[in-house]
């Protein structure tokens, strides 16, 4: 890993071989345009958008919210009534946060490891604090789903989608070649999603009248606000100075 951005041997872009670039453009005459389309094509106007639309109309979905582990539990909690008869929306969204916080905790483990390797004698305690909070949020969401009569070990559709969104983040932070700023960018993206995710949960629990849960989520959201600010500030310092700088607490 290199710590800063530098000028080197990048071979992308036409500027690297202008003569070749000119030659490529020279070939762009009408003769080639004519052969691009097969004369016998029975669907000469079919576009990629047409194909996509066909599949969007025909195919089903990613999957469903699992049935509550205990229907009785649901009746007891009154959740059915509280959520306007649609507890699955709330369970789906809490499931999403749960999966995201669990993956987020792993993301921080990888990020902290990289930071410790590059900045061995610096204080990274703020990252450790965030990590611990991500784990705590994961546990809080486990409890929340249980209280709603759901199964916290199940993958909900939104959790699944969130994991697909997060794939790139995992890949960036775990790459030994990405520097601290590049990795922090991925972590920032995670925190941005995290932040909006908690807002959504507050809104949903608010509407369901689940006051205790709403308060817990509000507290988590305040922690997430801090995460976002800290990561954002550090990333700015790293990019602006183009070197590894210690994080200053704000």
């Amino acid at each position, binding site marked *: 890993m290199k710590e800063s951005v530098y000028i080197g041997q990048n071979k992308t872009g036409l500027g690297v071989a202008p003569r070749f670039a000119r030659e490529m453009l020279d070939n762009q005459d009408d003769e080639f345009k004519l052969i691009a389309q097969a004369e016998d094509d029975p669907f000469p106007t079919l576009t990629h958008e047409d194909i996509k639309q066909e599949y969007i109309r025909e195919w089903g979905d990613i999957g469903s919210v699992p049935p509550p582990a205990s*229907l009785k539990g649901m009746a007891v909690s009154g959740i059915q009534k509280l959520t306007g008869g649609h507890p699955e929306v709330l369970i789906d969204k809490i499931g999403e946060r749960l999966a995201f916080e669990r993956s987020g905790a792993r993301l921080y483990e990888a990020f902290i490891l990289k930071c410790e390797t590059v900045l061995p004698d610096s204080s990274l305690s703020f990252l450790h604090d965030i990590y611990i909070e991500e784990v705590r949020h994961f*546990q809080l969401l486990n409890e929340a789903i249980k209280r709603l009569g759901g199964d*916290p070990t199940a993958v909900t559709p939104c959790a699944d989608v969130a994991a697909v969104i997060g794939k790139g983040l995992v890949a960036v932070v775990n790459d030994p070649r990405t520097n601290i700023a590049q990795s922090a960018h991925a972590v920032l993206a995670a925190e941005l999603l995290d932040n909006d995710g908690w807002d959504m949960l507050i809104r949903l629990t608010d509407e369901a009248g689940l006051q205790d849960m709403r308060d817990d989520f509000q507290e988590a959201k305040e922690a997430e606000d801090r995460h976002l600010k800290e990561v954002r500030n550090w990333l700015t310092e790293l990019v602006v100075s183009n070197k590894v700088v210690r994080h200053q607490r704000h």
Partner: protein
Amino acid sequence: MSLDLHRSRGYPLERQISSWKNLVQEPVSKLDDDALTKVRVVLMNGIELESIHFSRCFARVSDTEMRRHLAKVRRVEQQQATTINWLLPADLSPLETTIIYEQVATEITAAVAQIEPDEYLAQCYRFGLLEDFDHLFRYSALLDRLEGKDAADILQGYTDILPGRPTFYHHRDPMDDVRNHFDGKKADPITQFNALTIMAAEQQTWNYYMNIGPMFSDPVARQIYAEIASVEEQHVTHYSSMIDPNQSWLERWVMHEVNEAYLYYTCMEQETNPRIKAIWERFLDFELAHLRYVSDLFEKTEKRDIAEILPKTFPDPLPMRSNREFVRSCVLEEVDLRARGTEFVPAELESEATRKYRRTVHAHGDPAAAVSRYYWWAPGGELNRENPPEIPADENLFERQEETRL
């Protein structure tokens, strides 16, 4: 099934080619479909890939006329492979798909090990089983620690997340990976099917790991895929050496087609997703036509009756289900077995060549051991270990495969 393999004609070969649209069907659901449906998808993709691989090898040593016959059937096999492999959904990460691959290796090998009539070969299956079962454990640790996901959501409880023979010990000198082969003239048809099936499954696992290994940014994952792909290379050596080398090429082709047909029949009988079941049924019909085509070719070319090599009916379907008790007892009883030459021996009798080989490959550490150091599965993942969610009291939320009987 009272299908007469010597007579049935199947769906006409000439009509087996599909459009691109029909090749790309709606994938199965990662969340809602049964794990065993995905096991079947991965298994049958492997079977089709082997049919193609075999056909290419045969074509290399054939004249132009035979090459044409092979090309004709192979084109359909390639389309079948596409249809099936494209049933995997894009929300499975490559590592999650890896979990399915090792579930296939565990449950299908376990099923085969229990029905194999030849005691030596059954031992060979149990030996390989304990290694793929261990791969599943190492990959589950990687999935949890890298992506923050619980492999149990893929395995759906059918398969344990427990160590088998540690991956550390899988690495052997090549001389200790070649096994004795059965005699095609005497072997039970199921013996031939078993060997073809497991060889095919291992071969596609090899392919898959070799292709996706470089897609990981994490160096530990890159090392683990390198390490386990190497074990799969050994497994392909191990299983393919069980097959009789004295059969004629055409005879082997017949065995490939009948095994394909048998496995589609097996899948069709046990499939719970009606849409996927229809695919198995259709492809069974395709394979019966391949079998007819090749049987005719065999009789014409070799001037032998197909009944000499081909059973008249299928054996019972291969049971696809959880083999938890069998796998656990194999682990506890045979974890310390090692291979030496063609035999299985206690650990202390391993060859010097294997010990030396292992020292070389582990010279800088063993990634499979490193990623799973202190790992123990807990529901919802390792981060739940202190505070595991309780198991719901109400059993069986859905009617699942485990409740359906053959």
